[in-house]
């Protein structure tokens, strides 16, 4: 009767097993430091330009749109607070994670998927290498390290975008903007602003690797794995941001 649930439950179980093995490999040799640094370059440095751009634009838009509403209450000077809280708590981590998921979950899934369909993963195992240790763990470490950094940069660039609108369009003083933006932040905001990207990073790396390693059916299968990885990673990110946000409301 519940047969239709069997496949998704088995998939989730496989996902959890893969994740535990990938994390366990962090503490087990051999360690592939070169692969970790290479992935940091691809995931972190490679995503840098788009993250900067979107971070800046989100700060600019936030400041412009909020200023209109705040003017009605004579609170235009508080635009720094709005931009700061929204970016650090929610939009910075969310937008950065969605961008990195679109760029890297798909990249990871297609790369590992291509290796799977051309028997390179089997060849690795036959030639003495654990593909989880060699491919999954470095991507997990690199994403978990780089996504929080990218988020911090995105938040900061967003605040600069808001400051430019505040200064040149709203004629708000520099110190007023930066003081209000900084003072509104409490440890709770910064905590969830940093925990979210860390959790999202695990999701992005593991979902990409999981769908890559399950790829079947040649090049068409690689395309399907790539698309599925991005969609599933995005759904997880939306669900987790709501859940983590909710948890932090009670802290």
């Amino acid at each position, binding site marked *: 009767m519940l047969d239709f649930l069997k496949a998704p439950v088995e998939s989730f179980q496989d996902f959890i097993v893969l994740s535990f093995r990938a994390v366990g490999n962090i503490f087990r040799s051999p360690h592939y430091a070169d692969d970790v640094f290479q992935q940091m370059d691809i995931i972190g440095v490679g995503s840098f330009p788009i993250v900067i751009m979107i971070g800046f634009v989100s700060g600019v838009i936030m400041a412009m749109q909020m200023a209109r509403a705040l003017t009605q209450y004579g609170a235009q000077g508080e635009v720094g607070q709005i931009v700061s809280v929204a970016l650090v708590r929610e939009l910075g981590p969310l937008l950065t994670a969605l961008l990195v998921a679109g760029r890297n979950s798909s990249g990871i899934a297609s790369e590992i998927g291509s290796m799977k369909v*051309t*028997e*390179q993963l*089997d*060849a690795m195992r*036959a*030639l003495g290498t654990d593909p989880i240790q060699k491919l999954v763990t470095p991507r997990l470490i690199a994403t978990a390290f780089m996504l929080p950094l990218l988020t911090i940069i995105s938040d900061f660039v967003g605040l600069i975008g808001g400051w430019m609108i505040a200064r040149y369009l709203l004629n708000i003083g520099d110190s007023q903007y930066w003081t209000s933006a900084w003072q509104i932040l409490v440890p709770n905001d910064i905590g969830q602003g940093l925990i979210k990207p860390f959790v999202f990073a695990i999701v992005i790396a593991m979902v990409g690797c999981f769908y890559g390693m399950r790829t079947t059916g040649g090049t068409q299968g690689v395309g399907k794995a790539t698309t599925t990885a991005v969609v599933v990673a995005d759904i997880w990110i939306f669900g987790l941001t709501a859940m983590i946000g909710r948890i932090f409301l009670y802290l």
Partner: protein
Amino acid sequence: MTQPQTPPPPTTAGTDIVRFDQVSLHFGATPGLDGVSFQMQAGETRVLFGAAGSGKTTLLKVALGLLKPDSGHVYLFDQEISNLKEQDLFDLRARVGILFQEGGLFDSLTIAENVAYPLLNQRVLRAASSGNGHSATVAERVLEALNFVELGETLEKFPSELSGGMRRRVGIARAVVTTPALLLYDSPTAGLDPITANTIIALLLKEREMRNTATIMVTHRYLDGHLMANFSYNSSSGKMERATNIAEESATVKFFVMNEGRLVFDGSEAELQAAEDPYVRKFLRHGGA
């Protein structure tokens, strides 16, 4: 042109290199292997025929521990591998060379790096070649293996720069560089023109001539099996020629035919030619030999 010099791991005469005991494996409702039993010893060759999806590649992957059987027992070098952990399997796999159907070359690595991969990544081989002159030893063995397949000039190229036949030859170099006790070839001639296909078979004969390695070869072409059973490699002329000791050579070469995961034929070439099963005979007719 010489075969890599490292002495092969000891394999006692009469010891089973591979043994399958009622091995079954299903992919959902589809049988991959269905009650397969056979054994082979050092110096023997098995030629495995079968239609696409009949379980030939699955058999090779189960023999190497890349797939776990649902039931039955698989022994590699007299050690049961059905329930071994992946880490423990690595040391056994170091004694096996495999050529994958799709080549399985790492496309982000150069040809030299591809061939060096098992030497640098297999724990027992890495330990054996550690010490002074380690990297020189690896480089020398890589060059020897590539010279063996007559591709010594491709060291710094990438797999995508080579033709299909050349990639297959690099795959053979990577399989033999460790001087394994067992070689598994998955469709070494599939998709190649007859001239290149015969070159590949000549290389397999050359390897067998030099080291007498136990070999399982999966193929669709009857001619491949016929050449393995009746021809030898003449190192002075560099060509295949009809073996002078055909009876002796044929005795070590046996033929398998698989159908829907089952081993439906196991015997010599003469027995294969005399077989009456219409499925088995299909492989004879298409061979044209």
